[in-house]
């Protein structure tokens, strides 16, 4: 039997403590999209090193004498996220290969929209220098203006477009 989710306020409090510990120990916040970027940069550099070194986007991360982009803080943090979420799913009986979709959405369509949503997040997170975790949540914790601007833009837009996309979820 699947266990119930934790009380959201309690979970938020614990999440806040993890973030606070991160800031206190390392001086920086948590993130997620940065690891995805590292994977992309490492792949492009592995497949086409000359292209990577000549492109203004990749050039600052790769090149002679630079550490592999995969040896980055966020890559290790995200490996931790994978393990932590897996342990949580294991003890709460939630490990299951399944596609989750709104009641009127077929599996294939859900995959397509999930892929599209991921792609938009990948692009948006580059402009905003971070996603919901790295820019919005971590930015808000250190009272950065960017954190609040990004948070309001993400959720404001979410509400603005939710009605048009309601068939996906309700």
């Amino acid at each position, binding site marked *: 039997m699947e266990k119930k*989710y934790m009380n*959201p306020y309690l*979970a*938020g*409090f*614990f999440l*806040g403590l993890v*973030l*606070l510990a991160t*800031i206190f*120990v*390392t*001086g*920086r916040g*948590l*993130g*997620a*999209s940065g690891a995805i*970027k590292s994977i*992309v940069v490492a792949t492009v550099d592995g497949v086409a090193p000359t292209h990577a070194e000549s*492109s*203004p986007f990749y050039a600052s991360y790769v090149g002679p004498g630079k550490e592999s982009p995969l040896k980055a803080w966020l890559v*290790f943090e995200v490996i*931790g996220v*994978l*393990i*932590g*979420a897996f342990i*949580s799913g294991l003890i709460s009986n*939630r490990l*299951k290969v*399944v*596609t989750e*979709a709104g009641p009127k959405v077929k599996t294939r369509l859900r995959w397509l*929209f*999930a*892929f*599209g949503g*991921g*792609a*938009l997040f*990948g*692009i*948006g997170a580059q402009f*905003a*220098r*971070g*996603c*919901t*975790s*790295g820019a*919005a949540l971590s*930015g*808000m914790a*250190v*009272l950065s*203006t960017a954190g609040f*601007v990004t948070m309001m833009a*993400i959720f404001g837009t979410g509400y603005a*477009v939710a009605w048009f996309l309601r068939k996906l979820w309700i």
Partner: protein
Amino acid sequence: MGPFVPEFISEQLNLIVALVLGLGFGFVLEQAGFSSSRKLAGVFYGYDFTVLRVFFTAAVTAMSGTILLGYFGLLDLEAIYINPTWLWPAVIGGVIMGVGFVLGGYCPGTSICAMAIGKVDAMFFVGGGIVGVFFFGELYPLYQTFYESSALGPITVFNSLGISAGLFALVLIVVAVGAFAVTTLIERKTSSTAPSISFKKLPHRIAGVSTIVLGMVLVALPNRKDHLIGTVSSPAYLAQNPVSMMEPDELAFRILDKEPNILIVDIRSAEDFKNLRLPGSNNIQTAGFFAKEQVPLFSQRHVKKVIVGATESDEQAACLLLHELGYENTAILKGAFPQIKATILDKAEYAPTGSRWDADVREFRATAHLEINKMILAEQNVVPKAPKAGKKIAGGC
């Protein structure tokens, strides 16, 4: 004092720290239900406000904790990474991500959690994220100018709004608690299976009220730096707390003797310091005493910290601030900089005091005048060491 990177935690160890912190991050996100896209999307349709509750509680907790750690001097707020602002790219990036959130039902962090417990849609989301970043990278020259535009640096939201950090924290807490109450009402009307139906009223009310009280405490906290500097500079405090003094002749003697166990802290303005300073002195203004980088310098107990300032009361306040910050073995220069300048640096006619040491003092000052001025000249000819470019903490996504 935190943060412990890069001084106490090496680059390698920091990666292990990242793994452990990530583990906690992933565990809590999954326990909160962030591994379910339907639950996440609920925030936009009113049937499940878990995202709002977890996200804002976490933001309030981490923000209040950061402010409190800074206030108690446990965390150097100037050393932590403040996400820099590129205003319009942040807005446009947020808009693109907002559409992606509703379409995909995840954000990157939550998709990684969901992927870990086997959600296939989350795997597609992560795949889409990889393609999205690649797409952005390949077309980068098209919007590079926009990407780098409206760079405002690491600005803080309370400065942008012109209020104190504490007041902003209170406003955010009140807005968050208000939003929790309102959205719970909406959620119960929208869905008969809403998570909030099982909430017990009393503990939630107590938590809400105590958070607002915490916000009020944050407003009432004075800025620690201003507060401490204000306290130690008040004339009454200075009168009650005498500090040990060092005669200019003694300091001159120790300089000539090249005594290693002495640290001359010149608190005068950078400009005065540049114009004329004692050999081997360090220019650290009083407000700079709080920085983490000064800890190793000031905390050497066997080294006497001699404060040199424009006036004795400046020196005394700075010295008392060192005591407040927990440093010991201090002294101030008697008569401040002007007196040592008059008696040693400038050639002054020695006025005999009638003491039996008159001849010795006259001779010492004459030697000191020559030698110390030679040392000052020698120091001027040396190219000043560039201030150590302290490894700046990198962050962000």
